[in-house]
């Protein structure tokens, strides 16, 4: 009989859990503390289930730092919050597409800055879509920037592949500096990314243009240096592994697509441990009239530190976690070429960043979790930005992971030459 031993083990575990709870007090709210296997119960309501399982096994642990709610709110400049407040009642949603609509004109708004929906009612059937729009505009205040970063494939024996690449982006919507005079292609934003190392991928590059409308697909061109051809690729490639690693283009900010690609549904609320480089903003240093550089510390992972504990892909240095209130939202694409099925995302209820996402494939199997870490940048109350600096993508189906980001220097560019984001740049990248 297997039932009796199982029951016994269960009872013992329950008793031990209860006994151990008596042995130490609840985690402090005003001091740093560490969540680890020995006190995993304290993380039961603070982490998605598959992450909790890694915590219990000792693969992960979390350095939790206290955060003052007002200070965290002030990571975004006063100008951002004032513009957000001024958006009250201005916008609604297109029922069919979840597209953002100007109430005054019934059309796609000309220019939006700040959160378009300052208040979200959880009982609103459109709450999920409104949260997704707030997420989009919380991250677009800088207007543009870039960084050189790495993608590291890591399995249980360490790093098996490293790719160095850069990304440059320019936004037309959401800019705290205001609307750009010209936007002939009617874009929401555009970006160039290219691989630098190793040699077998050097020169692979892509140009993305995201149109500011309700139904266009992103235009993505991929350039392969060996063929010297740039070809148009389907926007659904965002759900394909990048260079065979356990990381996806859609992991940037934990969601990299157009809001209209998903059907969004708010399914709950909670509190989550949010990964950040630090809970307060970094300074930016001006290097020319439009460019500002931000220095951030490198986050070493287990595979880079001999003898370290836990999963080789787990970050060991310079990453902390803060407790944040979140919306729990489901997203699902109806595009038959998109590989993901139901995606569950944890959005900050105030700052509108996604900290965690759980991904099912189209057969309904859970297979992947991404943790998305950020840093804030602010010098004064007229300009601020939030940047993704880390993705820990873990494929639990094959027990393998990839790390993305972890750059030490990034820049904010407030006056990109729009001509840079062109096929010409793409095809001359490896000249």
């Amino acid at each position, binding site marked *: 009989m297997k039932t009796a031993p199982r029951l016994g083990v269960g009872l013992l575990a329950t008793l031990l859990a209860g006994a151990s709870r008596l042995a130490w007090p609840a985690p402090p709210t005003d001091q740093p503390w560490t969540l680890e296997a020995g006190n995993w119960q304290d993380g039961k309501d603070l982490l998605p289930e598959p992450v909790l399982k890694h915590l219990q096994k000792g693969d992960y642990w979390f350095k939790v730092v206290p955060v003052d709610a007002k200070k965290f709110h002030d990571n975004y400049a006063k100008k951002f919050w004032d513009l957000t407040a001024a958006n009250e009642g201005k916008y609604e949603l297109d029922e069919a597409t979840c597209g953002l609509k100007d109430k005054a004109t019934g059309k796609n708004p000309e220019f939006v800055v700040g959160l378009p929906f300052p208040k979200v009612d959880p009982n609103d059937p459109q709450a999920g879509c409104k949260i997704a729009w707030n997420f989009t505009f919380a991250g677009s205040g800088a207007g543009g920037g870039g960084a050189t970063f790495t993608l590291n494939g890591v399995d249980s024996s360490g790093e098996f592949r490293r790719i160095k690449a850069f990304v440059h982006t320019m936004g037309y919507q959401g800019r705290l500096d205001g609307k750009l005079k010209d936007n002939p292609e009617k874009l929401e934003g555009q970006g160039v990314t290219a691989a630098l190392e190793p040699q077998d991928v050097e020169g692979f590059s892509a140009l993305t243009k995201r149109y500011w409308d309700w139904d266009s697909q992103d235009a993505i061109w991929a350039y392969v240096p060996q063929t010297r051809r740039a070809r148009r690729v389907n926007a659904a490639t965002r759900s394909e592994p990048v260079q065979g690693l356990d990381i996806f283009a859609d992991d940037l900010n934990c969601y990299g697509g157009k809001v209209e690609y998903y059907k969004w549904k708010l399914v709950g609320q909670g509190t989550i441990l949010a990964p950040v480089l630090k809970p307060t903003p970094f300074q930016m240093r001006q290097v020319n009239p439009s460019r500002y550089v931000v220095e951030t510390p490198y986050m070493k992972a287990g595979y880079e530190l001999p003898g370290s504990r836990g999963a080789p892909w787990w970050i060991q240095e310079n990453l902390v976690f803060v407790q944040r209130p979140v919306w729990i939202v489901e997203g699902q694409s109806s595009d038959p070429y998109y590989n993901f099925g*139901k995606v569950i995302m944890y959005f900050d209820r105030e700052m509108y960043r996604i900290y965690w996402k759980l991904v099912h494939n189209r057969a309904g*199997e859970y297979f992947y979790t991404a943790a998305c870490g950020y840093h804030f940048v602010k010098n004064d109350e007229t300009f601020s930005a939030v940047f993704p600096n880390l993705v820990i993508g873990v494929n639990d189906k094959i027990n393998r992971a990839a790390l993305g980001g972890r750059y030490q220097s990034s820049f904010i560019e407030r006056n990109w030459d729009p001509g840079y984001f062109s096929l010409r740049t793409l095809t001359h990248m490896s000249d």
Partner: protein
Amino acid sequence: MTVRGTALLVGILAALLAYLWLGEIRPRSGPARAKVPALLAVPPTDVARIDLEEHGRRLVAIRRDGKWVDAQGRPWRGDAVGDLLDTLGTLSPIMVVDPDPAEPSDYGLEPDTPRLRVMAAKGKELLSLEIGERNPAWTGLYARLAGQREVILVGAVLHWELEKLRDAAPEAENS
């Protein structure tokens, strides 16, 4: 070019065309891969009642005037019932894990295992599913259809939907 050379080239061309036809172009005549039916074979609108029985507790959702209520007529919160039905309508067994398990309890399938029953009007049973444990990687759940021995694996999205269902129940004790 000599006649022999021309004939050789024609021969090579014919061989290439034959290869293309046989290897690449010819429509495959084998049987089409049968599509595995979803767990719930009817549209969600045909469902009149759901029972989730687990650990001596029963959650009941009854469709009344287009809304879901429990046995006492109290409304269910949110869309959890509809979401579960939508998922069951798209979720197919991923694989048969064990056609004839000697110890179903190895898969968490025991006499008091959670059981999900989905019914149409007049109590006609549309689905009865015993729900076992998650597999080691947590990608799926072991399960067994009523009256069958075999243990199947279904996607873990069902676990997520059942959690939502429990959270959305009119109250904790809904039996």
